């Protein structure tokens, strides 16, 4: 038992007496053709989580909608919405719950089709590990690569690949091994820490709970055993800085002023010196208040209320960090991030949104779209905008400084959503990159940096729409000048005349255009909808 759990012993002897079962959250990725719903239905059934009345309903539904001739269609256990049952596909994330004597499980059952990428990413965002399903007859498909990419995007590190429908390939060990090798090669660059591969038949139950008699060549764990025993201990827990985003200021009367929130990383203890970001004001943790009595300390994931030794101005959205402040949290008013678009309307440069990051909100504008990622080949490509379900890299400017980290350091302080200011819908969610200023800069890079900066200033950042527009404009001017030269040559004009006219056309017209543009720019009023963003120097 961890110190924080035993520390509040007066909260109840029950906690101390009964060892608590750990909770594992996992996601299943695959499409209906891979037999994903069948696999989950089978897991629930094997774990004893399907009750008799549900089995009766299942048998009734199997006769009505079932796709397994004359048999029980386990997929119908999990397809909940009527549209899904009619179409025989999974549309939305569904959460399933079951427990074995060793662990409790929450399964995010997510759709595999490309148009539901956002739903899969949502399910993956809270997962400790992922089950990736491959149809043994098909091997590694583009969709397998897509599912693996989404899972890696949200930071899942532990993968188990279930190669399903082994019965349809005669339980052939060579088929299994070829697919396992292909898969490891396909995802080699995605940064998974562990990849285990298990041959299964979800329909018949091979290697789900019971080891398969038909595949004696497989000696590893069954899928349920893997889920019960996968190591969940957090690698970086020791020595992590205590970080506490303030969620709610609790002031029942003038005597009590508490900062309610959930510890994001590390540990906060009574007596710790803290700095409130972004104000940088300092204080000390006076009490850690809970309904079960005061605690001496609280650690990541625990929801508590802190009181401070000094009356400092701190409110929702601020972040308290334990000193010395050598940690990962930075106060920034811009950032580069990967985003996954969830709204109907594409994200564009200049688009203005509300950003919610941890408990903070701010106004934000997309200042650049750097690239879009092809989620099957993992290659970046050029993009003017990012449509629904696209994943790309953008730069954001905020209207005020917000404490944040890179997503890889903390999902709580590096993950965010973008909210449309008119429809109030969630149009994207994103993953902050490390601040550009923090990136290690090499010697050779230092020498060329001014040139690179100049180029970026003239042409826009690499891969951005701005650069593409400027390059297009230059290309158009050159083409125009060339046509002019060819026409004049056809008219037998002397070479110096042609040269002068072409040069004048190339130089004088752009200059006149810029001057003309400036006249209009100064005459134009700022658009009313954006005027609130024009104040301040951030945007």
């Amino acid at each position, binding site marked *: 038992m961890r110190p924080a759990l035993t520390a509040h012993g007066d909260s109840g002897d029950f906690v101390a007496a009964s060892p608590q079962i750990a909770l594992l959250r996992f996601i299943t990725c695959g499409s209906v053709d891979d037999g994903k719903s069948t696999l989950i239905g089978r897991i629930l059934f094997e774990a004893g989580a399907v009750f008799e009345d549900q089995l009766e309903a299942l048998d009734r539904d199997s006769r009505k909608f079932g796709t397994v001739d004359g048999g029980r269609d386990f997929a119908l256990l999990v397809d*909940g919405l009527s549209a899904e049952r009619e179409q025989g596909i999974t549309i*939305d994330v569904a959460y399933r719950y079951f427990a074995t004597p060793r662990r409790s499980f929450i399964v995010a059952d997510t759709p595999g089709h490309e148009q539901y990428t956002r739903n899969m990413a949502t399910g993956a965002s809270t997962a400790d590990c992922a089950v990736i399903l491959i149809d043994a007859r098909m091997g590694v498909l583009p969709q397998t690569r897509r599912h693996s990419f989404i899972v890696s995007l949200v930071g899942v590190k532990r993968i188990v690949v279930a190669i399903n429908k082994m019965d349809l390939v005669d339980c052939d060990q060579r088929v299994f091994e070829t697919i396992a090798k292909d898969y490891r090669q396909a995802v080699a660059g995605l940064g998974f820490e562990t990849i285990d591969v298990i041959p299964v038949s979800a329909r018949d139950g091979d290697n789900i709970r019971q080891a398969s008699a038909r595949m004696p060549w497989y000696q590893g764990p069954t899928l349920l055993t893997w889920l019960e025993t996968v190591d969940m201990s957090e690698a970086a827990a020791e020595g992590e800085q205590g970080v506490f985003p303030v969620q709610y200021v609790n002031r029942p009367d003038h005597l009590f002023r508490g900062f309610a929130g959930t510890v994001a990383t590390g540990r906060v203890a009574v007596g710790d010196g803290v700095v409130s970001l972004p104000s940088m004001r300092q204080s000390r943790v006076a009490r850690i208040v809970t309904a079960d009595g005061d605690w001496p300390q609280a650690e990541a994931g625990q929801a508590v209320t802190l009181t401070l030794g000094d009356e400092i101005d701190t409110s929702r959205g601020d972040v308290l960090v334990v000193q010395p402040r050598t940690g990962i949290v930075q106060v920034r008013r811009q950032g580069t991030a990967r985003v996954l678009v969830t709204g109907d309307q594409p994200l564009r440069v200049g688009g203005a949104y509300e950003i919610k990051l941890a408990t903070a909100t701010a106004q934000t504008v997309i200042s650049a779209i750097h690239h879009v990622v092809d989620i099957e080949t993992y290659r970046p490509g050029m993009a003017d905008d990012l449509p629904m379900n696209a994943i790309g890299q953008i730069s954001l400017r905020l209207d005020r400084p917000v404490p944040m980290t890179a997503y890889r350091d903390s999902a709580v302080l590096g993950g965010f959503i973008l909210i449309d200011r008119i429809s109030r819908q969630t149009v994207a969610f994103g993953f902050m990159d490390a601040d550009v200023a923090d990136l290690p800069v090499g010697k050779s890079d230092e020498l060329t940096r001014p040139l690179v900066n100049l180029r970026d200033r003239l042409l826009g950042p690499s891969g951005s729409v701005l650069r593409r527009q400027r390059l297009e404009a230059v290309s158009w001017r050159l083409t125009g000048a060339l046509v002019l030269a060819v026409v004049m040559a056809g008219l037998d004009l002397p070479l110096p005349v042609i040269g002068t006219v072409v040069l004048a056309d190339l130089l004088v017209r752009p200059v006149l255009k810029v001057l003309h543009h400036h006249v209009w720019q100064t005459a134009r009023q700022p658009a009313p909808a954006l005027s609130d963003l024009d104040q301040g120097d951030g945007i």
Partner: protein
Amino acid sequence: MAALGHLQRLEAEAIFILREVVATCDKPVLLYSIGKDSAVLLHLAQKAFYPAKLPFPLLHVDTGWKFREMIAFRDETVARLGLDLIVHINPDGVAAGISPLASGSQVHTDVMKTQGLKQALDQHGFDAAFGGARRDEEKSRAKERIFSLRTVDHRWDPKGQRPEPWALFNTRKLKGESFRVFPLSNWTEADVWSYIAQEKIPVVPLYFAAPRPVVQRAGTLIMRDDERLVLQPDEVVETRMVRFRTLGCYPLTGAVESTATTLEEIIAEMSGSRVSERQGRVIDHDGAASMEAKKQEGYF
């Protein structure tokens, strides 16, 4: 984070959700249905805002057909904890003489619960209502978000749900829209009972087995809580040792035969059970995907 115990993780998640609503919504309310899930939700809400009192009232949408013991427990709880309780009963339904016996379970549920809830929310202008619903209860609930956005008419659009990554809840809404918020989304029936035992939370005595007057009706054991349950010619009232796994309107709530008189016995009985919790709920069986249809119309 993974090192936290299973109930600790669920408790912290629920407290986070409760605080998020109070920090971002104008006028929240806690839908209090008196059952075990409501009891856990109320307990978590008190923990979330300790040492302050609850920063929102409780709302009980009554139908006039709850078990008498439920009403007694409700009033005792409110008095003991010093809570602010609003009781609403649909006056139109009362005037029309709606009852689960005369009108049938579908009409009764729609008028007294769904319409009654909408009336109360509109009347008081609540923009966020906490409910104790769990995703493991029913298939369409398994796909509902923790923050479930409802239109001005309280309708749920299952296909247009907002993505809910991490614990980043989009609490923005248009004027007139509201949220149903489910802090217990990720809890199971077993979690609820384990937590009640751990935290020593009082629950309605109907959950514990006792000799009670019941009649067999359409394969279900219905308790005769008062004289309004008129017996059919072939029905007899028997005293049997029964308890309830869920609580609602007494003519629509099936009892199970049981000898479990303590929390430990309930937990033991449940882990050996082969039928699901909502099996005793008559209203869930009104046709395929009926919960989804009810929710679209504004039901919890």
